């Protein structure tokens, strides 16, 4: 059973966006060291 089906291209695009967002979040949150 699959809850979502986005295919392989969809999977790669989604993860590229998610990784870029998370990387950016780590950059932009300026709590300190």
């Amino acid at each position, binding site marked *: 059973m*699959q809850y979502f089906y986005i295919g392989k291209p969809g999977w790669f695009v989604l993860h590229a966006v998610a*990784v870029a967002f998370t990387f950016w*979040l*780590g*950059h*932009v949150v*300026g709590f*300190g060291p």
Partner: protein
Amino acid sequence: MARGQRSALLWALVALSLGGWLMHPRLHPLSMGLVMVIPLIAASVDVVLVTLLFLRRETARIAYLLNGLLVIYGITTMAHFGLAKGAGVGGLAGLAAMVPVSFILFADFLVGKALFDGYWAQERAGVKPSSFLAPGWWLAHFILIPTVYAFGHVFWK
């Protein structure tokens, strides 16, 4: 799942996320920096959008995914805040100060899981479970998301 059980869980979800929304401006007012708007945005999404998506079976899986990811991002950013400034000292003591609030977020995740499982229990019966949204999937993302976040913080100056 009985209707009463579902509405109790939905109210629990609203109470937990609304509690988080109300707690942040007291602890970290926006005067501490624009970054403090992030928990307000995340908690607003949790209170409004996740709750609305959990109302229907068709959208409950998106709600579960969104709710779980918000919990992971919440624990990640709070751990970062704890290490940097938690308990006024940062470091391990600061990180330890974030443990109680992380447990509240974990409870929020589990309430979402109970709602999701309630919707999908029948569909799952007799079907080989997908690895997607299973405990292993969540654990992997609970490790990978903070790792990417830490890389972004350390390597993108």
